[in-house]
């Protein structure tokens, strides 16, 4: 096992395009690191440079204490999990796990047996070793494929969008299997995905990329609660954060639907910018009528016309249309492009308590706590108020075992 260290890694193609542009990252021994971002952000390219599939233009790639830039993939002792997923119907589960070892000539039979049995124990496959894979459930079959990676004794596991070719049913199941295996083995893991839910639920830390650069590296909770910029704020969380234009007059922030007195620390943090974009997560709102009195006083309320309500049983979402100021459309258009998503424009998404009886087309009083707002500079996208980097004592590089933040 080993740590993986990337120092000022650059990948430039012949045409000068930098797919990865000067990124540095330490993946600690035993850490589960996620590389996430929209398509084309450079996450897979970075993973391929770790594995040795892609030449590194400049920078140092270290595995343990060794610089591996010029090493062939097989000499890096890494295992790409699921790259070879096929199960062979006439070989026993034991042989299905063992055969990569058979390929390396000269591994003694006792060692093969020991390694396969250990892997099977980790994956709870011991009682199936003599069976044929045809008798296994979908999840168990995937575990056999993981077993193949385990017996290699790799220094780290690498996953490149491993769940993207599974159907939705297996996807959730496998996420749990991967997490369980990684926790049990404590093996350094780098995992690439474009799915923020996977990123949030699996990673010790998440490195969010855009156009070849890291936007923020931190625990899922840090990215969720303290996004450094609008891109991070918009990418993490589902449904995504609402962005509404705001105008400052004195210590009052004018939003399209309510005026909010700004707490002193926020007012100071914003400085002399007078038009801003304000981010509020849907789950930070609520139906004022179900907010208890002790909380009610800390927030503000506004009346709104509710267009549509979606009731999902354990939660419900209300959609509230509003007018976006002309001056903000450029910043929002750019964000849409970056996030590679069609966002819901000019409407607020509000998560309501499942007990709330607000209905389609009705008027409602909505509550939120101004402390839950993130205020962004529309010119740079920087989070002026709640960013991890702006908080004293925040250390984005700390490995944390924080519980994944709720995402839906």
């Amino acid at each position, binding site marked *: 096992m080993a740590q993986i260290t990337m120092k000022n890694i650059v990948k430039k193609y012949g045409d000068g395009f930098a797919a990865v542009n000067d990124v540095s990252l330490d993946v600690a021994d035993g850490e589960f690191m996620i590389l996430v971002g929209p398509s084309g952000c450079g996450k897979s390219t970075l993973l391929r440079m770790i594995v040795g599939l*892609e030449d590194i233009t400049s920078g140092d790639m270290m595995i343990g204490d060794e610089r591996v830039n010029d090493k062939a993939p097989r000499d890096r002792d890494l295992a790409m999990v699921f790259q070879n997923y096929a199960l062979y119907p006439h070989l026993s589960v034991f042989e299905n796990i063992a055969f990569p070892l058979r390929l390396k000539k000269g591994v003694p039979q006792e060692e093969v047996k020991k390694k396969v049995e250990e892997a099977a124990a980790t994956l709870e496959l011991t009682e199936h070793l003599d069976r044929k894979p045809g008798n296994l459930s979908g999840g168990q079959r995937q575990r056999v494929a993981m077993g193949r990676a385990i017996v290699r004794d790799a220094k780290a596991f690498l996953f490149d969008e491993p769940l993207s070719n599974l159907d939705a049913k297996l996807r959730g199941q496998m996420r749990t299997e991967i997490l369980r295996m990684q926790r049990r083995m404590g093996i350094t893991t780098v995992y690439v995905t474009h799915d923020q839910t996977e990123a949030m639920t699996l990673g010790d830390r998440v490195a969010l990329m855009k156009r070849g650069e890291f936007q923020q590296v931190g625990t899922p909770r840090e990215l969720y609660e303290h996004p450094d910029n609008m891109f991070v704020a918009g990418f993490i969380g589902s449904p995504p954060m609402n962005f509404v234009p705001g105008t400052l007059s004195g210590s009052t922030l004018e939003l399209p639907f309510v005026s909010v007195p700004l707490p002193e620390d926020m007012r100071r943090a914003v400085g002399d910018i007078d038009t801003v974009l304000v981010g509020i997560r849907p789950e930070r709102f609520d139906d004022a009528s179900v907010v208890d009195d002790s909380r009610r006083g800390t927030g503000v309320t506004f009346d709104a016309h509710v267009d549509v309500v979606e009731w999902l049983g354990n939660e419900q979402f209300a959609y509230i249309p509003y007018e976006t100021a002309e001056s903000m459309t450029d910043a929002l258009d750019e964000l849409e492009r970056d996030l590679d998503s069609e966002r819901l424009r000019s409407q607020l998404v509000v998560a309501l308590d499942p007990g709330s009886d607000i209905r389609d087309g009705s008027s409602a009083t909505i509550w939120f706590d101004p402390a839950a707002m993130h205020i962004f500079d529309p010119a740079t996208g920087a989070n002026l108020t709640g960013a991890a980097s702006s908080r004293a004592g925040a250390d984005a590089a700390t490995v944390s075992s924080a519980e994944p933040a709720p995402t839906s």
Partner: protein
Amino acid sequence: MVAALDLRLRVTSPELLGLPWRDPLSAWDPTAVSFRDIPVGPSRHLVRFVEADGALWALKSLPQRLAQREYDVLRQMEIRALSAVRVAGVVIQPVEDEALLVTHYLERSWQYRRLLMRIPTAMGVHRGRLFDAMALLLVDLHRNGIYWGDCSLANTLFMRDGQTIQAWMVDAETAAFHPTLSDGQRQMDLEIMTENVAGGLLDVAARREEPPEAYDGIIDEAHSVARRYTDIWSFLHDEPVVGYGDRRAIGSRLRDLNDLGFSLDEVRLEPEGDASESLRMKVAVAGRTFHSERLRSLTGLSVGEGQATILMNDLRSYHSWLQREQGVDVPEERAALRWLTDVFVPMSERAFEAGGRVGDPTQAYCDFLEIRWLLSEQAGHDVGDEATSQALADHVIPDDSAATISFVETPTAELPEVDAELLDDSETSAGPRAGRPPRPGRS
């Protein structure tokens, strides 16, 4: 979110257009759709074969993003004339993240299990042809900047081509295009292939109940594919130093490349160091179409490179014979036309008949020529057409002959209609449903 139906087909087959594209493939009614039972290996996605307007189509159900990606990669491969299944369409279904990829069924191709179940480990020559085919396919892909990512026997189909076998990529789910491949990408692809091939071969050996002692040899065979690949790759990329004016060395290298089937694109001789007499020879090759292009320009026949190699040889012998016979020089073009009408057309039909109309007439004629050569070599004199036809009809042919493989062939026209109950069997049987055919060449 559920997408709207988005149907994109590159063929205008009314029956194909009329399939129930809105429904998940697993729910298609076997009494309403002409499914065909074609043995395939286990797949991570549902694959069904459908007959529409007299043609066979392979339909694969997979997530929308992947289907779109595979469609694009296969289109790119078609543009580069690489050996991959031809994609006929992609259908985004109004079903939660499901899409269908439609490809042409590769006529007269074999799945490796079918082939290997009938060729025992001991018959190394034929197995060697299979591994050469895989190695050449991977070389072709890599030369064109394609990283496969999951090269395996199961993701490849095999087709006879003269005395060689041609491998075709049938699954491009993990494939990706790059301007060029790094050495790391090629190595990784080779490693994945070696592991996959070993798994596939061991699986067949287990199915054939071969003794465990055979396993070491099987693993060597899997490693041999990578060695074959490396030999070809090095040969193509070697830059030997030749003496200025050493026409023999230059000519022999070019001929060797042609013999492998590669057409030449550019030959470059660069001064090596200070010595102006030494030149570094760099050869850029185009596709593996040297003989097939020549044959097409002479006769209009469009055949595989392996077949063309044999036919061009036959044409050359005929040309010499004709000149001797007439006592004058005969232009190659004229000899080619006479060969086509007087030799190829009647003889290919005759060979096809003699072989029981298995496969196709061109391949039958190639087999005929090979068997005649092998029998004549054994006999020490030309055995003639009659004896060759008889040998072909009686299946009394030398073991080493590539034609022995033809006896595992099942004409696609006789594919049984699918039994609805079998559709639930995820691991469609690849084993022999009928009994094993007689061992070729021994009777």
